[in-house]
């Protein structure tokens, strides 16, 4: 049985052979691999770019106190960007699944409409969820916009759900039963963290502190942006976005307020994208 970490190695190997830069996960909490500067900034311009990296992604609201066999407040994505999107990208993608040991001919594989959007990043794209036997294993998106900017060269974003792939390959029913190595399970590593972060997200996060943090992050973002320190400024955008997600999970903001906060972050994303491209 192929362990979780070997799946990652195989994907690295596959995408390295396709000329990808093997990138690194980002250093603070993100909601998706899209937030990683390897994606956000590098898709904006017209230069060719191919990158692959693992990205632990935090969705505070999706926590289930480690009780749900398929939902987590943090799950691990394998993110690939290929720009421009090659003509046979669907086949290239499907071969990557075969490379990690999924015998596609025996499964039901399909591409089901799912237009992707990140409100906070001002990003949107068209594409699908890729299903294997009814289970979504990848988000497949042709970006159209990033940071509110219409892209001239269209990149494709492949976001593999590593837990989902591991469950499929290892035939597991419960995420926590996935084997990470022959001796260590996913649960061994993550179960306690899942539980504690669920408690944190839903019950314990300090609301007042998070509101303050959000304000400070936004202010710091604009201060740094003004000085032309794009990458440090971007760190604060990402922090602000995650802080917002915690407040949301904590039920500290009404849906209307939430929309306002999201709009705030979206404006940040738009201004930093413009600055990066030298528009402003």
């Amino acid at each position, binding site marked *: 049985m192929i362990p979780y970490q070997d799946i990652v190695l195989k994907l690295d190997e596959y995408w390295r052979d396709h000329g990808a830069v093997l990138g690194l996960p980002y250093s603070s909490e993100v909601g998706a691999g899209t937030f990683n500067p390897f994606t956000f900034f590098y898709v904006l311009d017209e230069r060719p770019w191919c990158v692959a990296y693992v990205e632990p992604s935090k969705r505070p609201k999706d926590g289930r106190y480690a009780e749900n066999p398929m939902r987590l407040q943090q799950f691990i994505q394998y993110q690939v960007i290929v720009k421009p999107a090659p003509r046979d990208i*669907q086949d290239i993608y499907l071969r990557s699944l075969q490379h990690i040991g999924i015998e596609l001919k025996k499964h039901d594989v399909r*591409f089901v409409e799912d237009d992707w959007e990140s409100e906070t990043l001002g990003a949107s794209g068209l594409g699908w969820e890729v299903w294997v*036997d009814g289970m979504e294993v990848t988000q497949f998106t042709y970006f159209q916009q990033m940071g509110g900017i219409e892209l001239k060269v269209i990149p494709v974003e492949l976001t593999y759900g590593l837990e989902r792939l591991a469950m499929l390959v290892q035939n597991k029913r419960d995420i926590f039963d996935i084997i990470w190595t022959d001796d260590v399970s996913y649960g061994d590593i993550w179960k306690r963290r899942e539980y504690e972060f669920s408690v944190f997200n839903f019950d314990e996060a300090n609301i007042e502190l998070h509101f303050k943090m959000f304000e400070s992050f936004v202010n710091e973002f604009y201060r740094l942006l003004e000085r032309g320190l794009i990458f440090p400024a971007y760190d604060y955008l990402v922090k602000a976005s995650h802080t917002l997600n915690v407040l949301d999970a904590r039920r500290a903001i009404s849906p209307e307020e939430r929309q306002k906060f999201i709009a705030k972050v979206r404006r940040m994303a738009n201004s930093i994208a413009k600055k990066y491209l030298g528009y402003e």
Partner: protein
Amino acid sequence: MSRTLLVEIGTEEIPARFLTPAATSFRELFVEFLTKNSIPYGEVKTFYTPRRMTIIVERIADKQNDILTEVYGPPVSKFFTDKGELTQQAIGYLRAHNITVDEIKTKQKGGKEVVYYVKREPGKPVARLVSDTLYELVQKVRFPKTMRWNGDGFRFARPIRWMVVMLDDEVIPVEVAGVKSNRISYGLRFDPPITVDHACNYLKLMRAARIEPDPEVRRKKILDAIHKEEEVHNIVWVEDRELLDEVVNLVEAPVPIGGEFPSRYLKLPEPVIITALREHQRYFAFKDRDGRLSTHFLFIGNNPDADIEQVREGLEHIVVSRLEDAMFYFEEDQKRKLRDRIEELKKVVWRAGLGTLYDKTERLVKLTQHLHQYFADVPKEKLERAVWLAKTDMLTTMLRDGKEFTKLQGIIGKEYALLQGEEPEIATAIYEQYLPKTQDDPLPATDIGTILAIADKVDSIVGIGMIEGLPKGSFDPFALRRLAQGVVRIVVGKGLFIKLKPLLELAFKNYGREPEVDKYLAFFKDRLRRMMEDKGVRYDIIEGVVSLDEDDLYDLYLKGMAFNKMRDKPEFEDLVIIARRVGNILEGVEADPKPDTAKLTEPAERAIYSKAMEIMPALEEAKRERRYEDVVNLLLELGPYIHRLFDDVLIMAEDAAIRKNRLALVNFIYAMFRDMADFRKMVLPGD
């Protein structure tokens, strides 16, 4: 010579909901192309799967028809000399067009007789026309949403990856979005490519490769699979045509795979389970013979080579995670009853600028109290309780966080209300407040549901209309027309005589706004017009009744139907003629409501007056009881008297006093017609 034309646009997976309308628009574009270029053809057929849109034109000519044009020359007088010989000018004309004098014809034009000949240009080869035009046709195919995928900016629903364009056995060269046409098509993902040797073999080749390009054949296969499942497991399909339509367009090689979910999830409300099965997984749901939800489901796969057992296991596994999610929301939600969430409505904004859900509820309380006058049998307390609970389900986690479950507003309210011991009528009303959502949706069955449904829609139309404006043209982003249509369907379908003006006034007052009743009444009347059109009522009859100063839509509807029923009978013509005759006289003059009977001197005057008095009681009763066909028949009895009056008596008499009294008489008669329609709007054969 007659040939077959094949155009297959091969794509990455086009969203299921886009396919059918897009294929229809592609076909229309194609037919237009063939017609405009006068290309003779037999039949245009369309086929499609998620990965292809195909047009096959059978018995198409290989050339377009020759193009004939008349080319004019000089007048005959300048063409021949007096002796009948050709002039210099004539010789020049013949030479310029390379024709002989035998081909010349003459014709009257601009008062002169001129010379012309018919120029015949041979039609262009169809292959060339297709080659020149296909790019444009593909570009024009309509989708709700399009994307770009390469540098040239071409837009389509999803990337185009191959194109087969052939006339019989020859490839027509075309390039669209960087893709060049050839004879290679693609079947199932892991199968070898398909070489199309001849356009007329396309379907055969596709089916040999296990692709079913015809959506109707796929539909039949899927329905057969559903029926087989019903028989084998002794269950009944929870019919869902929308899902069926979608699944037909999600597959190109349908393979039915049944499965089961654990019965412990039957604890969830049935609509939640059905939603978990359908919205995300696109599984068909079934009920047991006794009407309870079955744990059985049916999935339609797309890979005939799949290991069915393995796929089934996967399908069963994944649905558990969905149901587990639903269970999480459900159990969370049961911790607080709906009736304990009313205060919380204050925390949730309904719409920016239009207050919270609590504000909305308060407005609904007032509107429903007003509407109560039409439903005297409904206990007021019951109605009010339903109103206060109506929006509370919006506060549940199922609706706030439940992803695919968030569409269940009203349904969750009903299910939770039942679980929490609310009366069934109240629970049902919570669900029914949103009915009818579509053209074919049922109307609310309960009185409370009916009241709530009208109130909620009127409040939304007025509120959103106030902020966003009423929809113009085809753009209706807030679906206000659909809401108004819902109200019209309810009052007509349930036969409710409701005065709309006071209701609208109250709705405006609830928002603290100056009422714009006329504008909004007209908006509702537009929907009534549309409904009557759909029922086949003639447009002038619709105009005649709808332009009455009347705010009871059902009353207008009944009048329209009564006129429409008799529209082809001679009596209808009579009625319009006499009503107009009476009306015309009164145009622009002041008249008293009633004549002084003592001053009615002429026999014709006295006759019509006494006839009017004779039918008056029956007429009033028929109007009161809205038996409008009877009303029309009674009015027709006045016909001969009216004609006689106008033939025998000069209404606009010299003597002012007599004139005044005669106008009063006419006015008195006209009053009997006036509230039935504006007869000036109705059209007679002679108009």
